[in-house]
């Protein structure tokens, strides 16, 4: 007996131009061990009003992808880009560095995971909000302050007029996250990128923040990219999901389809590894054998082959392409039909 998931149904028209489109994005870093390819040909798109989940574990490149959209690595002088990041028709990677300032904030907002270092501890919250607002929309300071209070109220902070004068260390983690969201929304962006926004938060606070993000997404028809390693969070608020492994997209699907019928062995393995709240406690947990290879020693053929229960000789020598299936699904696996047929993710009751 299933109920409709309480998320926004994505816009039906496929003809609508996507808000953001990544086309074979490549991000390389110069390190003392050579050129490291953290993101190797990632492509996906996002429409306005959609909540796209980007899921993967450490080393998969999801955070790098997010930061590359905003070109946040530029200052380090150690990064090389390839491919395209098209936002409303403009390729962000080709813009001069200075032009990115117009995108960060007014058009694309970002919420980070690390609360302690993402908000400047020496300035009050109000000051930082006003500073952000004024940086992109000149207006009299009083007006900016009023807008800041509104933003705090919008993100659910009680007594915002008083919080304005608080310093970051005086407020709790959950509130800091709301402040970060407020900062990201200050200039009314069309796209919000949230990088593990709730990982550091308690579960009851996380529930509140996820609800907030869902509300914002619905009320403003904003596009949201939700980066996380927590499949539960993905199931809660995302409409579509992209699964990444070792710098590549291995699967993309609407959320219900991904959970009901994963087509990539890694996705299937991840779903099976999670101890279910209604699972059999006596059974050992499913384990994906092996460990993630180092980015400096990317295996030939399919990157997941060494750990894959379905792998054969072809997998180990030929790298599968990202195949487009019906129903908006994509998968990077030679044997995805077999995987789909085998998969009963939950034990049949």
């Amino acid at each position, binding site marked *: 007996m299933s109920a409709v*998931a309480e998320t926004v149904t994505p816009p039906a028209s496929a003809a609508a131009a996507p808000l953001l489109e990544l086309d074979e994005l490549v991000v390389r870093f110069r390190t003392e061990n050579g050129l490291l390819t953290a993101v190797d040909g990632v492509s996906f798109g996002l429409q306005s009003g959609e909540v796209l989940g980007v899921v993967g574990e450490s080393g998969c490149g999801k955070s790098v992808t997010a930061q590359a959209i905003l070109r946040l690595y530029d200052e380090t002088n150690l990064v090389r880009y390839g491919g395209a990041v098209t936002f409303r028709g403009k390729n962000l990677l080709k813009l001069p560095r200075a032009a990115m300032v117009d995108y960060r904030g007014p058009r694309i907002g970002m919420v980070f995971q690390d609360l302690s270092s993402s908000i400047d501890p020496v300035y009050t919250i109000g000051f930082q909000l006003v500073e952000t607002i004024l940086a992109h929309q000149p207006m009299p300071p009083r007006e900016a302050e009023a807008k800041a209070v509104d933003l705090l109220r919008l993100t659910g902070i009680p007594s915002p007029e008083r919080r304005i004068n608080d310093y970051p260390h005086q407020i709790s983690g959950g509130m800091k996250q709301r402040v970060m969201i407020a900062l990201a929304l200050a200039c009314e962006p069309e796209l919000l990128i949230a990088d593990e926004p709730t990982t550091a938060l308690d579960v009851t606070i*996380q529930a509140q923040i996820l609800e907030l993000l869902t509300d914002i997404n619905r009320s403003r028809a904003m596009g949201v990219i939700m980066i996380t390693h927590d499949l*539960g969070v993905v199931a*809660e608020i995302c409409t579509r999901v992209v699964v990444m492994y070792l710098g590549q997209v291995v699967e993309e699907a609407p959320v219900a389809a991904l959970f009901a019928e994963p087509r990539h062995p890694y996705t299937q393995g991840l779903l099976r590894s999670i101890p279910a*709240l209604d699972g059999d406690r006596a059974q050992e947990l499913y384990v994906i054998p092996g460990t993630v290879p180092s980015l400096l020693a990317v295996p030939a053929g399919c990157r997941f082959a060494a750990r894959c229960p379905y792998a054969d000789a072809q997998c180990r020598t030929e790298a599968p392409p990202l195949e487009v299936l019906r129903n908006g699904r994509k998968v990077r696996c030679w044997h995805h039909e077999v995987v789909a047929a085998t998969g009963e993710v939950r034990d049949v009751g």
Partner: protein
Amino acid sequence: MSAEPANDAAPLLEVHGLKKYFPVTDALGRVRAEVKAVDDVSFRIAAGETYGLVGESGCGKSTTGRALLRLIEPTAGAVIFEGRDLNGLSRRDLREVRRHLQMVFQDPYSSLNPRKTVGASIKEALTIHGIGSRSGRKEMVLEVLARVGLQSEHYDRLPHEFSGGQRQRIGLARALILGPRLAVCDESVSALDVSVQSQIINLLMRIQREERLSYLFIAHDLSVVRHISNRIGVMYLGRLVEEAPTDRLFSAPGHPYTQALISAIPVPDPTAKRQRIALTGEIPSPLNPPSGCVFHTRCPLAQPQCRTIVPERRRIAPDHFAACHLAEAEPAAAPPAA
């Protein structure tokens, strides 16, 4: 999964009325306030059993774990391990007891000395307690490395060459080599990726079966705690608000906080109907805990008495209690299905 331990004899560990208050001093050193990190917590753990301790920030679960091992000195209360009260022990006696009471730490990246090889770090445990001979020690280390799924060539490597999951195995090896009877796992899998988490959890459970080891499993991830624990205690702001066998806790939680906690867990199933109990407000600061029932400020079922009277433990069923004014003992029911 560990066999449900027969409830025989004296429990391995008994905690009575444990309290840890941290004084907050002003510039002149006068005590201004107290952070009641752990406030009157009592529970027991039998041999071979896993007791899960859950709660959110500020609930005091980590402090409880540390106070158990006397890494932090308790303000009050008794910790009785194998019949001996740990609080009265001399330094030498305490060191001896430490062989049997170990801890597996949360952060795989800082729990190992970055300048010591893996073998040296683990061997040190033996050296401290004067166990084994020089040559014998290396053998013992290699043996425990194999038990946690590592290889002998890892003996000479430095910590930074390993992944997070492997480092947790090393930390576990270091705790196991002394042959403990109880291990406190303080968020031992929280910093790991999901796919690695399952490996470590299976490992912990296998070792528990082989050694009849007890765990105090401290975590905030309820699905993991559910899988590994026999019994679970729920903490909020320093108090133990509910305790029950695992299955009962999830099927019939007695305390409103537990109910809210369970409903807040994001379930990896987009079609699941969610009846979320929304908790309003933030977790209060332990510096200024609410009067009466510490949970009343956020509780959807709060009554006037909750604001003034501290609820005592109410027995809902054998082995299951909740510290709530509204909790009622269940009427004697038909024997539970096996």
